[in-house]
């Protein structure tokens, strides 16, 4: 595309004013933004942007110092001539002006003289590779307070020595500012991303289960924090002081142990709760609903059998798959068979429940037409053990596709389906998960009936937020019912048109569920992709009926939570279910000053029912440093976590504010954080220098990428459902997922060493990195593209696609043919490996250079200018730099 860098001609000349760029700056003094962690306080740097201007650049010098990434322009970059355009971005721009909409205002001032070398600006892939080189394959011990872990992209082994593994908790910074003023000054959000049930690699020990017997876990009397390595035993071991609230507690008699000369308990190494950062307690009846031990959870498969799904063959696909999938239900380590019960419902306008009791010769179908007040028509035989009822279930799964083969029903219900699941769990007194397979917007006369409210005219207006807001009423109540009963909803959608995803996904996104969407589902191209998702969803490690509480030492506390969660009050995070991929981002605020000496402690306790129906308490502890030096803080920041926080907070903010405001805030805060660093931590240097903290040097690229994501970019070309879908998906993501989503991997495949064990190193996400003769794999955790250059050699094409040339390539190919040569094997191995690693399966899309589908591929090249709006990395960097300069003057 643009060979002229960021000075390109206006790319979105048709777009309405105010879109894409940032020309309507904060200088206009809009009402204080409602969202975010700016705390509502007046912005210290919110002076109107003066006429400073990035205009021409001739060259850059990159200077490395210990902590900062200094990135400076020659003196003449910001010459005074720029001042000739005052008010250009003062917010009073008179009408739309060409050139103002896509890029940055400065870009139009004068012709470009010299180009900014893309290689000279901070590279994410470089950062990742560097960290890999430094920490890859190493053992990371968690014995040091405030230690910054390796990046999420690096493979390393964790040894728990008193702090939770970064797989469970990652923080935006591992050194908290001592005071609220400092925090406010630097604007760096203080947050932790908690993935309580994260999967651990095989070489790391699973969590120990501690059983404190009938009394239950030992807890501080005052703040109820659980026994952990930070508790201080005193009085010869008879009492202990809680480090969270400083309360002194008696040690229960059965728990007494003498202290050694260091003041440590003699049994320190024998007790996980004294020596480890993460462990589990066996919960007593006090921790169970109604003081009754929970029943094992259940999975209910609820299949829409209306015309669309029958016709597309989906129903048959699901039924056939279930026969094998049910053999592999998740089970406790070492258990013979899964304790999970299964149940089946099919539905269109009415619901059909199935009695599959093992004693029956054939299944029984029970139709419930009364969808206004849903109920479950049977008790015994609905939720059964697959092992016991296998013949009846197989019989049923064989029959379902034929039973509805002649259906003409084109309307379905939805809310009653979820309600039925909740009622079933209620009747069986268990928690569990619903797998709902739906292709239509629920239009049948029943509670939760929806109508088309997609209105592209709302895009880029103050009302755009309504597109993201779910319909109130039925679904709101349903969320609550689901959470109370521990009913998680996984929604598989197969839409051909708009189906109000914002509303339909409301329940899944508040119950720890996921939404999977297969637009224009085609059996041949999407079937395997969907089945892979279904398998992952069924088999993943999951806990039910969960409640999480984050406790902190005095001086700060958790104030806000983001995730697929439900909050009834300000402290308890309720989750109908939480699986190994779901993360909750927790924001912290100061209450008081923190001391450098004692640091800051976080204890995150998750009470949940595991897959075999045991109530467990999982505790993750993390200790952080505190410092009154901002430089310490910037040093221990983690960009990946920061961006996770920003993504979630921005995605939540768009529910209440115009997108424009949200984008402005993001830029402002970026500039602010960096300006604060420049002002307080960096050594004095020329104003033309852009100085980034070392830990945050690729932060701008992520931030820019975030602003180019579908939810945040106001474009009528994007489907409303897709935007809502992405918005909700991100809310539950962990650091790995947001990192990958915002900076996809672009892997060159044409020149790799086929004998090497490892995959080739990714290159930067920019079209400049593509070569006409190349072959690239691009993946962001949700989509996967195989890009073929125009001039790709026939050998390459033959080797991988088994086709003589690109011209022979036709139709949609969703899998690579099984060709017996090292290259093909290697490519397929790489793809398989990536598919396995990601929480979702990704549909492989093969695109040829200059073909129409290439657009989808190009959308993910985040360093380039966005197709639907948004700046390129370089432009953004320049813009941020200018903002920083303004803040500093």
């Amino acid at each position, binding site marked *: 595309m643009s060979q002229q860098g960021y000075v390109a001609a206006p790319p979105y000349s048709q777009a309405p004013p105010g879109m894409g760029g940032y020309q309507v700056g904060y200088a206009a003094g809009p009402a204080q933004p409602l969202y975010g962690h700016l705390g509502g306080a007046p912005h210290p740097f919110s002076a109107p942007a003066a006429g400073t201007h990035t205009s021409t650049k001739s060259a850059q010098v990159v200077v490395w110092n210990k902590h900062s990434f200094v990135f400076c322009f020659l003196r003449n970059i910001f010459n005074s001539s720029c001042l000739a355009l005052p008010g250009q971005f003062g917010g009073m721009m008179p009408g739309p002006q060409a050139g103002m909409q896509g890029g940055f205002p400065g870009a139009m001032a004068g012709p470009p003289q010299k180009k900014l070398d893309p290689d000279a600006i901070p590279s994410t892939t470089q950062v990742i590779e560097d960290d890999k080189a430094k920490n890859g394959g190493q053992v990371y011990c968690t014995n040091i307070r405030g230690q910054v872990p390796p990046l999420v992209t690096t493979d390393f082994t964790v040894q728990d020595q008193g702090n939770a593994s970064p797989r469970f908790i990652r923080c935006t910074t591992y050194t908290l500012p001592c005071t609220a003023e400092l925090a406010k000054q630097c604007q760096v959000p203080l947050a932790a991303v908690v993935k309580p049930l994260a999967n651990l690699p095989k070489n790391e020990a699973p969590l120990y289960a501690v059983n404190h017997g009938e009394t239950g876990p030992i807890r501080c009397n005052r703040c109820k924090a659980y026994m952990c390595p930070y508790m201080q035993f005193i009085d010869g071991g008879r009492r202990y002081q809680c480090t969270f609230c400083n309360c002194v507690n008696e040690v229960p008699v059965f728990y007494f142990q003498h202290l050694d000369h260091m003041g440590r308990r003699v049994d320190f190494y024998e007790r996980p709760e004294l020596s480890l950062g993460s462990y589990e307690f066996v919960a007593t009846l006090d921790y169970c609903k109604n003081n009754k031990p929970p029943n094992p959870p259940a999975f209910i498969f609820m299949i829409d059998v209306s015309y669309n799904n029958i016709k597309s063959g989906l129903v048959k696909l699901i039924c056939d798959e279930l026969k094998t999938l049910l053999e592999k239900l998740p089970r406790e380590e070492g258990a013979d068979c899964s304790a999970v019960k299964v149940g089946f419902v099919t539905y269109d306008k009415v619901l059909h429940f199935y009695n599959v009791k093992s004693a029956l010769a*054939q299944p029984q179908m*029970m139709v419930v037409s*009364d969808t206004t007040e849903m109920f479950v028509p049977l008790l*015994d035989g609905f939720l059964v053990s697959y092992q016991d009822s296998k013949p009846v279930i197989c019989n049923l799964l064989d029959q379902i596709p034929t039973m509805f083969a002649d259906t003409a029903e084109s309307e379905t219900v939805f809310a009653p389906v979820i309600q039925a699941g909740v009622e079933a769990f209620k009747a069986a007194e268990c928690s569990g998960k619903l797998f709902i397979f739906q292709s239509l917007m629920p239009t049948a006369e029943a509670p939760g009936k929806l109508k088309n409210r997609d209105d592209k005219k709302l895009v880029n207006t103050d009302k755009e937020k309504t597109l993201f807001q779910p319909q109130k009423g039925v679904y709101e109540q349903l969320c609550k019912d689901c959470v109370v009963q521990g009913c998680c909803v996984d929604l598989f959608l197969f839409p051909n048109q708009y189906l109000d995803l914002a509303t339909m996904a409301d329940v899944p996104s508040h119950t720890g569920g996921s939404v999977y969407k297969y637009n224009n589902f085609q059996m041949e191209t999407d079937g395997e992709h969907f089945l892979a998702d279904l398998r992952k969803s069924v088999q993943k490690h999951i806990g039910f009926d969960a409640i999480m509480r984050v406790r902190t030492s005095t001086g700060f506390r958790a104030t806000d939570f983001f995730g697929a969660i439900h909050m009834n009050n300000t402290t308890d995070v309720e989750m109908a279910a939480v699986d190994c991929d779901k993360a909750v981002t927790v924001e912290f605020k100061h209450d008081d000053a923190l001391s450098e000496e004692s640091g800051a402690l976080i204890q995150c306790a998750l009470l949940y029912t595991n897959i075999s129906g045991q109530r467990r308490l999982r505790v993750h502890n993390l200790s952080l440093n505190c410092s009154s030096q901002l430089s310490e803080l910037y040093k221990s920041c983690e960009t990946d976590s920061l961006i996770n926080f920003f993504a979630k907070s921005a995605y939540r903010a768009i529910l209440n504010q115009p997108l424009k405001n949200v984008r402005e805030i993001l830029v402002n805060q970026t500039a602010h954080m960096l300006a604060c660093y420049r002002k307080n931590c960096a050594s004095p240097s020329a104003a033309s220098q852009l100085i980034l903290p070392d830990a945050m040097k690729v932060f701008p690229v992520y931030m820019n990428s975030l602003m180019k994501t579908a939810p945040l970019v106001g474009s009528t070309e994007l489907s409303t459902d897709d935007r809502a879908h992405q918005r909700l998906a991100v809310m539950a993501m962990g650091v790995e997922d947001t990192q990958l989503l915002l900076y996809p991997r672009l892997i060159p495949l044409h020149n790799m060493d086929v004998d090497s064990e490892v995959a080739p190193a990714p290159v930067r996400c920019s079209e400049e990195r593509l070569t006409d003769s190349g072959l690239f794999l691009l993946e962001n955790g949700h989509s996967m593209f195989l890009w073929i250059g125009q001039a790709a050699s026939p050998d390459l094409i033959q080797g991988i696609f088994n086709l003589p040339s690109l011209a022979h390539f036709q139709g949609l190919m969703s899998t690579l043919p099984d060709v017996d040569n090292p290259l093909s094997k290697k490519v397929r191995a790489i793809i398989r490996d990536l598919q396995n690693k990601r929480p979702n399966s990704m549909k492989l899309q093969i695109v040829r250079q200059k073909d129409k589908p290439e657009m989808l591929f190009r959308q993910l090249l985040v360093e380039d200018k966005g197709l639907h709006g948004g700046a390129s990395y370089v432009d953004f960097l320049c813009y941020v730099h200018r903002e920083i300069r303004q803040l500093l003057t």
Partner: protein
Amino acid sequence: MTTYQEFIQQNEDRDGVRFSWNLWPSSRLEATRLVVPVSCLFTPLKERPDLPPVQYEPVLCSRANCKAVLNPLCQVDFRAKVWACNFCFQRNPFPPSYAGISEVNQPAELMPQFSTIEYIVQRGPQTPLIFLYVVDTCLEEEDLQALKGSLQMSLSLLPPNALVGLITFGRMVQVHELSCEGIAKSYVFRGTKDLTSKQIQEMLGLMKPAATGPQGRPVAPQDAAASCRFLQPIHRVDMNLTDLLGELQRDPWPVPQGKRPLRSTGVALSVAVGLLEGTFPNTGARVMLFVGGPPTQGPGMVVGDELKIPIRSWHDIQKDNARHLKKATKFYEALGNRSAANGHSIDIYACALDQTGLLEMKCLSNLTGGHIVMGDSFNTSLFTQTFQGVFSKDHNGDFRMAFGGVLEIKTSRELKVCGAIGPCVSLNSKGPYVSENEMGIGGTNQWKMCSLTPSSTLGIYLEVVNQHNAPIPQGGRGAIQFVTQYQHSNTQKRIRVTTITRNWADAQSQIQHIESSFDQEAAAVLMARLGVFRAESEEGPDVLRWLDRQLIRLFMFHLRRSPFLQVFNNSPDESSYYRHHFTRQDLTQSLIMIQPILYSYSFHGPPEPVLLDSSSILPDRILLMDTFFQLVIYNGETIAQWQKAGYQEMPEYQNFKQLLKAPQDDANDILETRFPMPRYINTEHGGSQARFLLSKVNPSQTHNNLYAWGQESGAPILTDDVSLQVFMDHLKKLAVSSSA
């Protein structure tokens, strides 16, 4: 000249009718003075093996508001080929098919011996019979197994083309689809929600939503194929249904300690009625409800599920303490009326040790002509044999049941119809025959009987309207025509016409003739029916007072003590049950109900009927008492001792063995024919079950009249009830004083 006795008997045998008076007083005034109204017991479908139906349609009077059927009483002009209607005196030409008529070539309906004649009507489609089983699954395992067995057995009794359906209920209501292979399919309804007929049909997928009609054109009434999913010909689904019944399980929902199972009888019936209403309106159908306890939730709930709150008793009802009574009754009445309007009858088979809510539900059967059977358990021969009795067949191999009966009464102008009492509902047909004075279900001369059996008997009450000053000429005769249209169990449409006539008599000059024409038995039953009808709607003591004011005859002593009027010692359900049967059985059975029959068996002679009196209870007698509902064999003290000693086993006491056997044989004869099966009790002197006998006999000896103590005759009854002697003494005194 035959005696009145023979005349009455002959009339009953031929026409199934028994009049209170067989000579009718000729004026209103005289009729009123007679106290017992001119009335009759009419058995519309009395079994007449000797009466083959004719294969043509009846000839009707052409006058629009008459339409009487040509009968032997009509005057016929054979030459002019015209006949005169004996009710409205309209002269009617015979239809062309009667062209060959002459004095020697008369159609059957003109012959005097065919005062009752049955026509087969070929019109209209023949719809198969429909049987919809509505089965309670909140039963004890043993009961459910027995019931399942009975139901499976009943399938073999149904005609192969009959449509059957199955609804089961407990906490929820399930309508089973019978035609599906491979998977048993059912529609489930919440047991607590009252649904309209339309909603039910929609939910069962029986109607297409109205919105689909493009120009708002009315929706096709029903999709025959759709309805067939729930009601299938038995020959097609026999296997399926047998399996389905076999797999029926007890209601799976747990019943906590101290609670009754949740039983949604109301919704189940509502669904059953709605289903039939939508699919087969105005077709002969039986909803057969099998319950093992009271409805405990939803509409029609009779008692809550808390066991500590007992089901209402008469005491509660009198104290106005029965919370659900009114609401439930209203619900079932509405349901019964809907069902009756569609011609569907509802049977209730209630088997439980406690009450099942028959009081509230009785109207379902009473309004629709359905059966009520009450027993202790489905696992008893009382139930199984009674249930089989429902499917009993006549000499032609047809079921003894008919559907969709409509009875119309036409009278000569001196008479009017006051009303009827029996298993019927009014069709509100006002006309010249209808009296303003209502007795029973009045204000009409047409009644509908959704289902009737050969023994179904109605009490018909008439009024003489002829004024005193307009005397009827000597030898004048009044006539009544009963026209009963019905669907025979072989699906034929039939019309049975009975035309009877009686002489008018001037009460002043011919009072002794009228007196001698009095049919004491018929009058007793008719008056008793009136009493029961009143008792259903009025307070007990008022009814007794009313009865006392009326003519009192011997029977009335027992009637006053009977469970039909007395509620003491009976649950509301039992009272409802007894009254239900009393208002539909024929005269003989009704008499047995009023005054039970007591037979004595002894070595002193052949079996003989004895007085229903405590003095009949002697040590060396075996007594057999038949109260219609109970059959009691009572061994006297000595007999019992002999039996215990085992004399009957010894060859030399063969005669004793035979003596023991004789009442049992007689009892078996009764058991075989009686519907419903009576409770069979075999007891002895001092046995706990002897109370059934002791409570019925006239307490001529009690603990009060001490002189009886120690006497050899009879057994004293421990009761404060007055004996017949006291009653009669009192009555005589009253009779004298009131006439004075």
